[in-house]
């Protein structure tokens, strides 16, 4: 990259970047544009709506069809994230610090779970959830989300834990701390940035998840926002609710955008941790 110094090269890279960004952003902008169009203008191919309307937003935000799934999404996401981060931090601490038999097996299993194609698990999980009465409940989504959030959390956090000098823990022990106190009072506060990063990553995963959400829910009791989009109904059975779907898609994208804008550094740090060190 040090070679990228001349004006021409800068121009070339700049153009390439613009093209990539445009390719990624145009569909999103199209979605935003659609969400502001009146139902009649949905098929109008112009990029900028001829007449702007908040109608789609007021419509989705005034029905339980969307509000309830939004609440489900937030609730399920927060609970899953909290439990996954607490468990992952303990597991990651063990992975980073302790030598115990079966450690590499544990890391391997975690990686395996993270790599496992979710679609192949849908059918067995569906049967299990039906049998256990978890189908169409919050725990029915929270449990698999934790299972898939944990490997991500363990990997990210163990990289953070590895960077905390071991001597701090020794110092805490000599100062009279039990291993648990050393973890809670010294190690965990120092790993807080790592935990926040992990929490964001796990929450984004839960928030975006669609496959399990659509498979393990059947009513508004537990359906999450991404899944609810498929159940929107139009004004009559012959109209496609394009406008409200677009508006809902924009609404559920907003938290992601906020997260990414505010925590960009953190997220990058989390995703690349372990790449250079550990």
């Amino acid at each position, binding site marked *: 990259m040090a070679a990228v110094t001349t004006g021409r090269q800068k121009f070339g890279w700049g153009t390439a970047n613009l093209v990539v960004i445009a390719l990624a952003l145009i569909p999103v902008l199209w979605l935003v544009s659609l969400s502001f169009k009146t139902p009649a203008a949905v098929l109008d191919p112009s990029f900028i709506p001829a007449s702007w309307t908040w109608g789609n937003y007021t419509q989705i935000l005034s029905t339980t069809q969307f509000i309830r799934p939004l609440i489900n999404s937030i609730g399920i996401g927060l609970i899953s994230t909290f439990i996954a981060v607490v468990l992952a931090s303990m597991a990651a601490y063990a992975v980073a610090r302790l030598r115990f038999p079966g450690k590499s097996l544990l890391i391997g299993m975690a990686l395996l779970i993270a790599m496992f194609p979710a679609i192949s698990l849908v059918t067995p999980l569906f049967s299990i959830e039906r049998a256990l009465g978890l189908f169409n409940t919050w725990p029915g989504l929270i449990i698999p989300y934790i299972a898939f959030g944990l490997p991500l959390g363990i990997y990210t956090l163990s990289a953070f834990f590895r960077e905390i*000098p071991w*001597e*701090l823990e*020794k*110092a*805490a*022990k*000599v*100062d*009279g*701390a*039990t291993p648990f*106190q050393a973890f809670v*009072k*010294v190690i965990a*506060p*120092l790993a807080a940035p790592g935990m926040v990063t992990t929490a964001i990553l796990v929450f984004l995963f839960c928030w975006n998840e669609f496959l399990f959400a659509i498979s393990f829910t059947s009513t508004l009791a537990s359906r999450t926002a991404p899944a609810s989009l498929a159940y929107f109904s139009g004004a009559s059975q012959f109209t496609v609710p394009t406008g409200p779907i677009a508006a809902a898609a924009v609404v559920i994208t907003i938290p992601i955008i906020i997260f990414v804008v505010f925590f960009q550094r953190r997220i990058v740090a989390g995703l690349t941790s372990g790449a250079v060190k550990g």
Partner: protein
Amino acid sequence: MAEIVLDNVTKRYPDGALAVDKFNLDIADGEFVILVGPSGCGKSTTLNMIAGLEDISEGELRIGGQVVNNKSPKDRDIAMVFQSYALYPHMTVRENMGFALKLAKTPQNVINEKVEEAARILDLTQHLDRRPANLSGGQRQRVAMGRAIVRDPSAFLMDEPLSNLDAKLRVQTRTEVSRLQRRLGTTMVYVTHDQTEAMTLGDRVAVMRSGLLQQVASPQELYDRPANLFVAGFIGSPSMNFLGGTLEEGSLRTGLGDIPLGGRLQQELGRSGQGRQMIVGIRPEDFEDASLVPSETRHNGITFQGGVDVVESLGSEKYVYFTQELGTVDAAELTELARESGRADSGTGETVVARFDPASRVSVGDNAEIWVDVRRVHVFDPETGKNLSLGDSGSPASPAGPAGGDAPAQADAGAAGQDTGSAAAPPR
């Protein structure tokens, strides 16, 4: 306040590596003991075992008369200062220093009192509410010391506490540590790889090499009467010169000339037969520019010619390096010492360092006449590394050989560290 007794303490790692082998040391109450040795000699492991941060594989560790092998660090009443200081970055200086007391559920007003007193001693009062990240290296070091002092422990353990400071600050802090220890009168075990630090700080210094205790003695004793080749080479800067020698008819034939053997040494060596190879050790200060040696002491030594290579004038003294055809010296201890000081390639010992009086006029390229005080020459067995010249009271190989006043303590050459049991290292 407590004495610390290490009784055959051994550390063996699960993979079979032996880090510390049957370590014996009695540290008296209030004593300042230094563990010194090259990296990897097991000194930090020993300290960690005393602290309870590493398990003891075999042997017994007693602090204040109690066996503490299976006690966790928090139940041993010891404080430790780490090389990296290991300050808690998320706490202020005050919280760092009070952390141990807080864990011990000391009332807050007592904590404040103690922290403030320690801060006063260490000149940290105005920094109490800052975080470690905003402190200089020296200040951090003092906070680490403060954290230890506040607890009023029965012993302090220090793991190379000065090695992260720059040279000037290190010397300054060194005297502070020494003053502090005397003021508190608390037992202190201090680990360092720096022999200067070891010599200047300790009441007693324990020299270690590959897990084995080599010698424990006062700094001066270590310097004057090293038990073996390793201690002789490790202690002293610039280090002792080693040259090969052959035993022949009451004298040692070396590249510098024939060194006559004194009474006791002759007895000692005479038994081992003629033609035997020896390693001769001479400290730089036992050389002198021959022209500056008064005629009445001249007979205590021999003179030889040497080509001057480099002259380092330090004002108060001159270090003169000269090359000489010297016998090859080959011993495991020396190889390790050379590796430690980063001159593994110069194992043959062709360069000799001498410390001359600053009045000496020698300059580079001269063929100078150099005098060696043969009374102070050490002779080592190349196989065992043992110092064979400790027999007659501090003036090894003395031709005149008047016995020194402190002879009784030095009667047995092999047991310079008698109270510790394993002074001289057996060949490994």
